[in-house]
């Protein structure tokens, strides 16, 4: 007890005093001991308690006093805020410039963060997400290329071999069949039974039960939270509800609802999850899954990869290739394991990291800009600040006043920037590629608002350092200086600010010029088709994953041709044809393979072929550049003739030597008669506007009777919109035919370069913003500097200086910082643009024309920013300027 009491007393006072008190009380207790030890002891503890209480109260009072000393004087703060606002209103142009500059920088930075947050920063919405990995199996045989998916049997075998790891899979190649024509894809996936278990996520409502995965069970699905809210009216009893599938006409059962914010790995904006298709469920060897695993604590992905590869090699010894199967279908013996977060964000990570850096450079430019303006303003207020010092204001008071004024202006800029961010974000979202995998929908939410607050605070600190220092210097000037013209301050800092802004602007302008230049080159590409007045209609006739019904191939081909016939009879349609080709989807392959007869044409095999119907060439606008096109009769009867593309002919024969050559092909196991090349047409960019044209072989549809990716080409005389509406009506009552998309070809072509357009928009916007900031900043700095030199300019003019020499002299003063900025910016840009290499199209990183243009634009902007105020100064009346106080 004594030790405890002593320890408490030492905490409240100090060791020396506590010892002294204890010693004194022991002495008195000893003296009182003669009256009774118990009484003396009681007295002792009473005194100790009293002293402890007093010391505690004393300490509390002192703490409160210290706290009160730091509490800001709210009344003074309010006064100073009012002064800051008045001071800003007294210089409206300066204040408006600072606010506008900050608003522009903040608006763009906030927009970028709102998008990037969903790619780079937002954590995955799964518990223990750092334990989840994506598995990409492969083969050590280098001749076997590609990254095949895995099967249910693969997952089961790995699970048996590595019981401490949990495996699951998701099939990403799903067309749900539930969206209307031309509607953005709803996005769906078929999931392995252990999907939710491995992700450790419970559906918000309901969920799959084991019987849902039975191939014979009625089809069911789990919908997204957004789908449940908007299309099912947030019905709490949604489980068991039937949803109508447009084509084929049938219904599926809702089994549950995903939790809000749930993201399906690898699927952009997935709204529907379903068990494997019955055909897949009854064939567990079919490889369709992207494999995902949850590792136990302590198991690193690299170690797991080794364990998995060892298990694969063990399994490979006992597994034989299916007779007639390819090595691609054979047992895996290699694996690449990566964290799930990296796998999900990798495709867009590089772009958004680069964009984030560019946004940061823009904000820094804005801070430099306003810093320069505020420093110049400080000099203008030199007399005011000197008077305050003379009246007793301390340096801290001067700094506080100035920082408060900066905070008011920058805060107003931030608020305006937030308002501007909304329309900019809307435009940016409209340009986002559909395949961009976002972990949340970009929006101005709480995280973004927190980012704004942090960025504003950092901007105030960064932008205030130099101006506050200037203000302190100015406050030390003699008040008796009656001249209104503040002393001319040779400022290395000002030159550094100018050079810094120019350097930053050059970096952004070079980046923007490279990407916009790439986009312009793509726009100059000839797609090969006559895209004006052409409508492309993607049809779906393959088995719908939710109906399990498979039509025969001749049946599908017949339905396709019937559709084309109906389309030909629509008013306003001038030509209709069909082809079986994956059109404008960023990837392409022919549905049939050809090889030259007798090994001719360089001995190549498996040349990609496209079945086409009568009318295709007319509708697509393809003309023969050599030979002739097949007649409608030849195409309708399946005559053994083909037309090849120009690059095909050049690659395998030299030019027109391809005419008359023969190609072999087969349908299933049936070898067809050799087909003769009768014509050569221009190349067509089937995959995308910025992808190389494909070397293709066009063969009669009737011969090949295929319908895996049927596309109707419809040429119209006038507007496309009414025809598209009529085309959609054609299939309304067609139970086995569905339009996946019907749109003008020009629009679909532009869609293929959506990511490129986004990059060009972003970097182009940064470049434009940096030029705007540069011009405004330099204009403001020059104007304020010249205003301070009014008398000097008047003296020069009065002494006979010509206006031209005056302007030349004022501009020449800025040449050194401009040249320094260009040099520094050029070096930084040369290094920084290397990250843009993969985004360029037919442009090199150091294209002379692009760089020269960028340098001239930046230099020109800087010179104009200085020239205009200089020219205005040269128009001053010398007599008026000499009388200026």
């Amino acid at each position: 007890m004594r030790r405890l009491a002593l320890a408490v007393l030492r905490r409240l006072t100090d060791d020396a005093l506590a010892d002294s008190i204890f010693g004194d009380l022991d002495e008195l207790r000893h003296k009182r001991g003669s009256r009774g030890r118990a009484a003396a002891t009681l007295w002792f503890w009473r005194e100790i308690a009293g002293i402890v209480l007093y010391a505690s109260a004393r300490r509390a009072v002192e703490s409160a006093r210290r706290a009160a000393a730091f509490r800001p004087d709210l009344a003074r703060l309010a006064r100073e805020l009012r002064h800051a606002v008045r001071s800003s209103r007294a210089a409206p142009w300066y204040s408006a410039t600072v606010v506008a500059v900050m608003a522009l920088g903040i608006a763009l930075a906030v927009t970028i963060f709102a998008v990037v947050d969903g790619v780079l920063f937002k954590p995955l919405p799964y518990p223990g997400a750092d334990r989840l990995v994506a598995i990409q199996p492969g083969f050590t045989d280098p001749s076997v290329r590609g990254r095949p998916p895995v099967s249910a049997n693969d997952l089961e075998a790995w699970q048996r071999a590595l019981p401490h790891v949990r495996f699951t899979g998701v099939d990403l190649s799903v067309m749900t069949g539930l969206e209307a024509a031309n509607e953005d894809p709803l996005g769906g996936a078929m999931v392995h039974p252990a999907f939710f278990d491995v992700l450790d996520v419970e559906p918000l409502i309901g969920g799959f039960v084991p019987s849902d995965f039975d191939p014979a069970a009625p089809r069911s699905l789990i919908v997204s939270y957004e789908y449940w809210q908007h299309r099912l009216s947030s019905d709490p009893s949604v489980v068991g509800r039937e949803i109508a599938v447009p084509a084929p006409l049938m219904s599926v059962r809702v089994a549950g609802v995903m939790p809000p914010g749930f993201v399906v790995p690898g699927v952009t904006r997935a709204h529907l999850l379903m068990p494997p298709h019955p055909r897949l469920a009854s064939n567990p060897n079919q490889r369709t899954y992207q494999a995902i695993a949850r590792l136990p604590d302590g198991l690193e992905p690299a170690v797991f990869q080794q364990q998995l590869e060892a298990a694969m090699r063990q399994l490979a010894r006992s597994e034989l290739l299916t007779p007639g199967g390819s090595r691609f279908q054979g047992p895996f013996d290699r694996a690449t394991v990566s964290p799930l977060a990296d796998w999900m964000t990798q495709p867009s990570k590089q772009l958004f990291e680069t964009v984030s850096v560019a946004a940061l450079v823009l904000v820094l430019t804005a801070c430099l800009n306003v810093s320069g303006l505020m420093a110049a303003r400080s000099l203008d207020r030199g007399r005011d600040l000197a008077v305050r010092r003379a009246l007793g204001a301390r340096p801290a008071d001067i700094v506080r006043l100035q920082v408060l004024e900066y905070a008011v202006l920058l805060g107003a800029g931030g608020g305006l920037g937030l308002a501007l961010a909304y329309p900019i974000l809307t435009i940016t979202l409209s340009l986002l590629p559909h395949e961009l995998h976002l972990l949340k929908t970009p929006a101005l939410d709480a995280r973004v608002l927190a980012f704004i607050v942090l960025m504003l605070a950092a901007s105030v600190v960064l932008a205030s350092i130099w101006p506050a220092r200037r203000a302190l210097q100015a406050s030390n000037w003699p008040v008796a200086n009656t001249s209104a013209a503040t002393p001319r301050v040779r400022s290395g800092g000002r030159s550094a600010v100018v050079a810094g802004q120019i350097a930053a602007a050059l970096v952004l302008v070079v980046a923007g010029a490279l990407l916009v230049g790439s986009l312009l080159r793509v726009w100059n590409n000839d797609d090969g088709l006559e895209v004006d007045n052409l409508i492309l209609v993607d049809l779906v006739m393959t088995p719908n994953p939710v109906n399990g019904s498979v039509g025969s191939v001749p049946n599908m081909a017949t339905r396709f041709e019937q559709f084309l016939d109906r389309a030909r009879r629509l008013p306003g349609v001038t030509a209709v044809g069909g082809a079986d080709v994956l059109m404008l989807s960023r990837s392409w392959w022919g549905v049939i393979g050809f090889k030259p007869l007798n090994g001719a044409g360089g001995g190549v095999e498996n040349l990609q072929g496209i079945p086409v119907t009568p009318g295709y060439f007319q509708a697509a606008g393809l003309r023969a550049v050599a030979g002739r096109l097949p007649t409608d009769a030849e195409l309708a009867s399946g005559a053994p003739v083909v037309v090849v593309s120009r690059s095909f002919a050049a690659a395998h024969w030299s030019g027109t030597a391809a005419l008359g050559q023969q190609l072999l092909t087969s349908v299933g196991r049936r070898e067809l008669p050799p087909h003769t090349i009768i014509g050569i047409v221009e190349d067509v960019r089937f995959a995308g506007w910025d992808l190389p044209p494909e070397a293709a072989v066009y063969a009669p549809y009737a011969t090949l009777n295929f319908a895996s990716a049927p596309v109707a080409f419809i040429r119209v005389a006038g507007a496309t919109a009414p025809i598209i509406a009529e085309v959609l009506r054609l299939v309304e009552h067609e139970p086995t035919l569905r339009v996946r998309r019907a749109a003008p070809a020009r629009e679909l072509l532009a869609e293929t370069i959506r990511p490129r357009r986004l990059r060009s928009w972003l970097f182009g916007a940064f470049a434009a913003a940096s030029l705007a900031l540069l011009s405004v900043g330099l204009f403001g700095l020059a104007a304020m500097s010249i205003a301070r030199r009014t008398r000097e300019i008047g003296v020069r003019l009065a002494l006979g200086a010509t206006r031209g020499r005056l302007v030349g002299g004022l501009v020449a003063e800025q040449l050194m910082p401009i040249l320094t900025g260009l040099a520094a910016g050029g070096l930084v840009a040369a290094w920084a643009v290397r990250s843009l290499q993969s985004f360029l199209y037919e442009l090199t990183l150091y294209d002379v024309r692009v760089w020269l243009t960028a340098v001239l634009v930046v230099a020109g902007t800087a010179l104009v920013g200085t020239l205009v105020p200089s020219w205005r100064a040269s128009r001053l009346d010398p007599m008026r300027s000499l009388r200026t106080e």
Partner: protein
Amino acid sequence: MREHAPAPLGEFEQMVLLAVLRLGADAYGVSVHEELGRHAGRAVARGAVYMTLDRLEKKGLLTSWLSSPTPERGGRARRYYRVTRTATESLSSSRRALLSLWRGLAPLLEK
């Protein structure tokens, strides 16, 4: 202990300093507390005495030294206090001010 310029003194601080002055070489916590009790005419909190002694020492108005430890004190030494010149100057200044203010007021208090 560095001596400071005269500083305004609170009432209780003055009483503690005067008690230390009166006690001379025998001024330590117990004796100062007893001296104050004798002259103040009211009970004085022991904690207040110690805190004030410590505060006055930190202000440079008192200095202290330690005696030899004794068994009756649990092996601890006594801490004796002595006023500094700064304290005497402050007390003199305060006395002058009070006397000046008091002049001619005694009869009023006796009524």
